[in-house]
C-alpha cells in the first residue's frame, strides 16, 4: 500500500467509527451539571424577557378566550410527544426532532418560548434530556433562538412570495442549524480552548456534533414541510382555532 492509500483507509475507518458510536442522536440538550454556575445563571437571566413576553401574551389570550387553555396545553404536549418519538433518519440510527421550529410556525415564537420552557422541564425530569441547572442555556438555544430564527425566515419567505414548501423547509432546517450553532457557542464560552480561545473551541464543538446535527436539520426540515402541508390540506378549521394565518 502507498502512503496515500493508507491515509485513505485511516480516514474511512475514522468516519465509520464516528457514525458507529452515535447510537442516539438527540437534539443537542446540554446535560445536567455540564455548565459552570455563572453561565447557568447568565443564560437564565437572558431568557427572562422572552419568557415574560410569552407569559403576558398567553395571559392576554386567555383573558380574551378562556377556551384557549386546553388548546395551549395540548400544543405543549404535542411538541413534547413529537420531540420524544424516534424519526426515520438518514443513517438508520434513531434521532429525535426538536419540534420547537414547527411550534414557532404554528403558534408564533413568543408562545413557544413559554411552552418550550415547560417542555424542557418535562424532558429533563421525564426523559433525562437536558437538565435543571442547564435549563436557562437550553431554553435560550431551543425555545428562544431557534424559534425566532425559524419564524423570521418563514415571514421573510412569505414577504418574498417564495415557494411555500421551500419556505417551511428553509425555516425549519435553518432554525435547527441555528440552535446547534448557539449550543456550540454556549459550550465554547464555558470551555475555551487552551490554544486559540473561544473561537477555536466553538469550531471544535461544531465539528464534533456536525455528524449528528446536520442530517438531523435536513430531516427536521423535510418532516416539518410534510406536516405543515398535510395540516393545511386536512385541518383548516383546527388551524383557524389556534390563530394560524396560513398562506395569507
Amino acid at each position, binding site marked *: 500500500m502507498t502512503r496515500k492509500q493508507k491515509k485513505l483507509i485511516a480516514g474511512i475507518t475514522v468516519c465509520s467509527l464516528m457514525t458507529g458510536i452515535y447510537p442516539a442522536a438527540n437534539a443537542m440538550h446540554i*446535560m445536567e*451539571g455540564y455548565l459552570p454556575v455563572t453561565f447557568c445563571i447568565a443564560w437564565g437571566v437572558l431568557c427572562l424577557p422572552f419568557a415574560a413576553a410569552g407569559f403576558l401574551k398567553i395571559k392576554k389570550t386567555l383573558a380574551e378566550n378562556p377556551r384557549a387553555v*386546553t388548546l395551549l*396545553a395540548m400544543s405543549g404536549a404535542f411538541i413534547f410527544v413529537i420531540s420524544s418519538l424516534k424519526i*426515520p433518519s438518514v443513517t438508520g440510527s434513531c434521532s429525535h426532532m426538536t419540534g420547537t421550529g414547527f411550534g414557532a410556525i404554528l403558534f408564533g415564537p413568543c408562545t413557544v418560548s413559554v411552552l418550550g420552557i415547560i417542555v424542557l422541564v418535562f424532558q429533563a425530569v421525564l426523559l433525562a434530556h437536558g437538565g435543571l441547572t442547564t435549563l436557562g442555556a437550553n431554553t435560550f438555544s431551543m425555545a428562544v433562538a431557534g424559534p425566532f430564527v425559524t419564524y423570521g425566515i418563514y415571514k421573510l419567505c412569505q414577504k418574498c412570495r417564495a415557494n411555500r414548501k421551500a419556505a417551511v423547509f428553509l425555516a425549519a432546517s435553518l432554525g435547527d442549524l441555528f440552535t446547534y450553532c448557539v449550543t456550540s457557542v454556549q459550550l465554547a464560552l464555558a470551555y475555551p480552548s487552551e490554544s486559540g480561545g473561544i473561537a477555536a473551541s466553538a469550531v471544535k464543538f461544531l465539528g464534533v456534533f456536525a455528524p449528528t446535527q446536520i442530517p438531523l436539520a435536513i430531516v427536521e426540515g423535510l418532516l416539518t414541510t410534510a406536516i405543515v402541508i*398535510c*395540516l393545511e390540506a386536512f*385541518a383548516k378549521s383546527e388551524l383557524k382555532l389556534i390563530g394560524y394565518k396560513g398562506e395569507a
Partner: protein
Amino acid sequence: MIIIDRLCYTSGLRYVNAMEKFVFSMLTLLLCVSSRSVTAAVLVLFVTGILTVGKGGIPLSRYIRLMSIPLVFLFLSTAAVLVNISRTPLDAFAIPFGSFYLTGSVKGILRGAQLILTALASVSCLYFLSLSTPLTDILGVLKKLHVPGLIIELMLLIYRYIFITLHTASAILTSQKSRLGNKNLRTARKAFAAMAGSLFILSVRRSCALYDAMEARCYNGRIQVLKEERPARYSEIFCIAGFEVFLFALIVVLKCKNSI
C-alpha cells in the same frame, strides 16, 4: 410508556415529603455544580445512588441504563474539551496531522475528568428527584415556591395530555407498522408526517371536547384537588441538613487545602 414516570410511582421514597426531596436534590446539585470538586462528586454519586437504588428500590440494572442516556453527549463534548488543534504540541499527547497537531495537555485531561464526574453526579441528583417524586408532587412544591398559577396550571394540563397524546401516537404508529408503513426511508418519512398531522388534528379536537367537559364541571381556570399531606419528619430533616453541611464543609476544607 415513559419509563422514569412509571418507576417513580413504585419508588420506596414515593411517600416521603416532596419538599424534603426537592430541597435535598437541588441543594446537592448546586453544591456539586458550583464546587466542581472531584471528592464531593464521588460522594454525591454514591449517596444518591444508594438512596435511589437501596431506599427507593429501583433495580440497579435499570439505574445504570438510565445513567447511560446522557453518555453520548458527555463523551462527545468532553472529547471536544480535551483535544486541541494547534501548531505546537502540548504536554500530554500529540498526534501529527500535516502541519498541525491533535494535542492535549495534562491539565486539560484532569479538567475533563473533573467535568465528567461533576456531570454524572449532577445527573444522579436529578434522577434522585425524578425517580422518587411524581410530577404532580413536584408541581405541589412549585406552588409552595410561588411559581405563577397559570404556569402550574399549564404544566398540570400538559402532563396529563402527554399521556393521551402518546397513547394516540403509539396506536397510529402500530397500525402504520402493520401495514408496512416503514418499509423504506421514503415511506417511513411519509408515514411519520401523516402520523404527526393526524395526531395534531386529533389533539385539537380532543382539547375542545376536554374544555367542554371541564366547563360542565365548573372549571374556572384552576383545578383544585385535596392534597395528601405528608408531614416532614424531624429525623429526615436532620439527616438532610447534616449531609448538606458535611458536603459544604468538605468542599471548603478541600478548597483551602488546595490553595495553600
